[in-house]
Structure formats: C-alpha cells, structure tokens
C-alpha cells in the first residue's frame, strides 16, 4: 500500500467508459506472461499505447459495471501499472473482490463520471468515501467499503495475510 494512513489520493484522471471488461484489462495474450509484463497490455485492444502514457499515481474513473467478465487478476495489472485507484459508477462483483484481495483501492461512486473529464485532477478521500474535482470544486460521495474488506486492502491484500499465518510460502524473488 503506497497510501498514507488515511488513504488520500491526488492524481491525473483517465476516463474509461461503461462495461469495461477484464479481457480489455488483461487480454488473453498477456495472461501467460510474467506479472511484470502484464500491465503494458492493459486496454491494448481498445486503446493501444495507453499503458505507456499512464504515470504513477494516476486515477482511473470508470463507468458502470467496471471490470465485468472473468476472474483473471485484472485488478493487479491496474495496480502494477501505477494507478492509485479506480473510482467507478459501479464495479463488477468479481473485479471488486480481486481489487480488495490484490490491494488495489476501488470505490463505487454513482455520478462520478459526470464530474470528471480526462486530464482533470482528482482527489480521492478513500476512507471518507468521497471524491472531488479540485478544479471545479464538484464532489461526489461513494459507497462505503465494509470494514473487514478495508482491513484486507490495508494489509496489502489476501496473500500477505496468509503469508503471516504461515499458510502460503512467501514469493521467491
């Protein structure tokens, strides 16, 4: 987790539309590559070259049902691409699980796509479940992330928790 205690993110905005699916985030060609190689394939089918433009700390604003599709670790690729978080109109249930479990901060904020355009800045007060456009001053509140899930997210995801309990081996590196 790169965030400070209270998890506030400030960054440049990228806008994705409705029904962004996991095959767009982590295409099948990338599935068998190494974890480090996967992020550059994000959106290669619908937005070629985009992954090169993303800078660390950027914020993704999604539409409805963000991350629909398969259980592949798409959230991990977005995190490893350097994105600070995703805030979407709504988030697919399976993507949401993976986001929590891979410690990629994700919030559902209905109306969020109306207060941002690509290239804007955004402020995300993650634990206050609030997002703000500092230029226009417009704000939008998000659904709360339940405390048990917030705890998994803050622990760095499921794997560090299991490692600590000795249930899985640490990653050999």
């Amino acid at each position, binding site marked *: 987790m790169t965030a400070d205690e209270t998890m506030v993110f400030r960054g440049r905005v990228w806008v994705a539309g409705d*029904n962004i*699916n996991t*095959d*767009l985030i982590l*295409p*099948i060609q990338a*599935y*068998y*590559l*190494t*974890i480090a190689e*996967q992020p550059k394939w994000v959106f*290669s*089918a*619908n937005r070629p070259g985009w992954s090169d433009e993303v800078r660390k700390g950027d914020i993704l604003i999604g539409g*409805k*049902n963000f991350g*629909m*599709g*398969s*259980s*592949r*670790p798409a*959230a991990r690729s977005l995190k490893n691409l350097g994105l600070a978080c995703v805030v979407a109109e*709504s988030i*697919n*249930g*399976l993507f*949401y*699980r*993976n986001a929590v*479990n*891979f410690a990629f901060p994700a919030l559902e904020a209905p109306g969020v796509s109306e207060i941002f355009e690509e290239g804007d800045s955004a402020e995300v007060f993650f634990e206050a479940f609030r997002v703000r456009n500092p230029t226009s001053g417009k704000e939008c509140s998000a659904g709360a992330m*339940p405390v*048990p*899930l917030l705890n998994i997210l803050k622990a760095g*995801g*499921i*794997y560090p928790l*299991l490692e600590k*309990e*000795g*249930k*899985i*081996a640490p*990653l050999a590196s």
Partner: protein
Amino acid sequence: MGMTAIEKILARNGDLKLVRPGDVVTVRVETSILFDNNLMDSVWRDILEVHDPSKVVVVFDHRAPAAHVLSAKGHKRGREFVKKFGITRFHDIGREQGISHVLVADYGYGLPGTVLICSDSHTCSAGVFNVAARGVGSPDITYSICKGETWFRVGETIRYDLEGTLPPGVFTKDLFLHMAGRYGNHATMNIEFGGSALPGLSMNARRTITTMGAELSVEFATFEPDGIMLDYVRARTGQPFEPQWPDADANYLDRRTIKLDDLEPLVALPDTVLNNSRSVGEVAGTAIDQAFIGSCANGTLDDFAIAARILGGKRVSPNTRLIVTPGTQNIYREAMRLGYVQAIVDAGGVVTNATCGACGGGSLGVLGPGETCITASTRNFKGRMGDPSARIFMASPATVAASAISGKIASPMEYFQ
C-alpha cells in the same frame, strides 16, 4: 420478512439467523475448485496448509492437454499439489477430464444448500443445483483452500418465473439472450429461477442459464430446488445435503415472468451480450468463417444431440469451419455411443477433446484478424476468442449448427418443422 433461496443458503453456511442485502457475510465453503489457470507461474502461490483436502477439487480444463510449456508446468505443479495433500477429486488429462463447471454436474460436486467457489467467472453454473456458487479470484480460492471459508457481499435478488414451453428450435440459450437483450446487466444482484416451466427443462437446459448468469454480471444465479434436480444430484453422490427453498414472503427487488412460448431464436451482436440481442432474421446472411459449439454453457449431451440432428446427412459449408467441443470426456463418450460424434464428423465438423478450447481463445480454434465467428459458448467480448478485430456473434447450438451448414448466419427453424 423472509429470505430468498440464496440468502437462506448463505445464512445456513454462515451460522446466521438472517441475511439481508448489504451484509458482508463469512461462510463455510463446502467445495473449492482449483483449475489449471490457478497453477500458472504468474498466478500460483505455494500452499503450505490445506484446511480439508476432501473439500478440494483439482481440474485441468483451460489448456488441456497442455497447449504450451507454461500450461504443462502448471499441470505438473497441480499433480504435485494433489499428491502432496492427498486430494482424491482430481481431473487430470484422460478419462475424467473436463471443464470444471461441467464436471461439477457430472459428478454431483455441487451439493444443494452449500457454498462452492472456483476462480472462474462461470462458477455460478452450479447455482442450478441450489448451490451458492460464485466465481472468485485466485487469492480467494487460495484463502478458502487454506482456511475453509470465504466472504460475500450480499446483493438484492431478482426472481424470474418461467412459464410455458419452449417452441421447437428455441433453447435456453435463446432465453438467456432474451434476458440479456431485454434487461441488460444485473451487476451486484442475484437471480433466482422458478416457475411452472421447470418440469419441462432438462438439467442441461437449466444449467446453460445459470452458467450464462456470469454474462449478466450476477453475484449468484440459483434455481429453486425441485424433484428433477434432487434426483439428478442423488444419482451422483451419497453425500447428505439440505436444499433451501425461498420463503413465501421472500423479499425480491423485482419479479419477472417469462413466457417461454413467446421466445424465438436470437443472436447477440459482437462485443457484448448486454442489450445487444437481435432476432436471427435481422442478421441472417452474415458470412461466417468459424462456428463453435462448446464451453461450460453449451458442451452438453443435449447440445450434441441438437447439433447431430441438424448436421446429420448434411455438409458444413466449404467456407466455414465447425468446431464442436464436449464439456467432459463423459459427454464425449456418450455422444460417441449415441452416434452424435459420427454425424457431426461426417458432416465435416471437427470434434475436439473436452476442454475450454476455442471459448477462451487459447487453443483449438483461435480466430484470426477480421474473421467472423458464430459461437454457442459463453462470451463474445472483443478479443475473447483470438484477434481483437474478429467479430463474435452468439447464439444457440441449433442456430450455430444451421449457420455452419449455410456458411452464413441462418435460422435453425427449418430443421424443426
């Protein structure tokens, strides 16, 4: 106020009196399924402790037999894992090979009233057995194998009451396309099926619908238990179970009745099934390079019977290739015995071994740039079955088989006069 079927299953397995939309519940997992994608280098985390090996199933399906060195390494890792922890429910390449969700049906792994997870999105398939079955992520499956439990966010439930009978030539894939076309996505919600049409729907026909629930982005898709389902499961397992019926005063977000008699063959246009269905007449005549019948939704014996009936004595168009993939080797053997494989292969179709194959775009029928495919599998996302410029139409196995003969999208109705 009562509970829906899914709320009752979650309550039972979480030792809770009441489960309501908005709750986050921790529940016991009866069945955790590990499959080959979990075992790949970029995904696998070495498990040191298994909560209960008798609750784990290991399956090789996405790349089976191994399609490349990486999948071969994954399979090897899987064999070692199974041996190390004494896991007996193991489906290696061979006689018991198949797609995880279809094996669940073949072997009665989905016990009514219990929780089953697998890190494949179409795990909702087992909801047909009144199971709280959900696709989760790899970390979740690792967690449940180690600790025997998982968490769910509980959503609202929409009840679908199915009435009447499907007309000849119309199948539950068309029912799904109708639901996707008319109601679009059901993100964060559960769907529950019941109604007077159930006795007329085979377990295979029903399972197509719950499997396709993933494409509606449902949390859970469950059927109300009935005699046909309970007999089916009892014929396959000696394990005890307690099915969960919805309460009479269950709280549904919406109740929708679908009259099966009113349905017709439908086709989803490429890239999404959500609000994207057309009657087959509207797209008839579109030339196709490939036709595919298979996947966890439509690689059943019923689907082989339909394909064989349409293809028997006919020829696949020289401009089209037809690939047919059974869900399990059990289905393959039965389809051979009944002459379905013969009819399909004589017509020029290629019948592959049981695997995900072309459905996942990884092997056995990958699409090239600019190609057009009509598929009876689960998913038509851009790039799903190969090159992102390929177009993927989705339809029932009957429509796919009829289209393979014409080399163009075609209605199956003439074969059901």
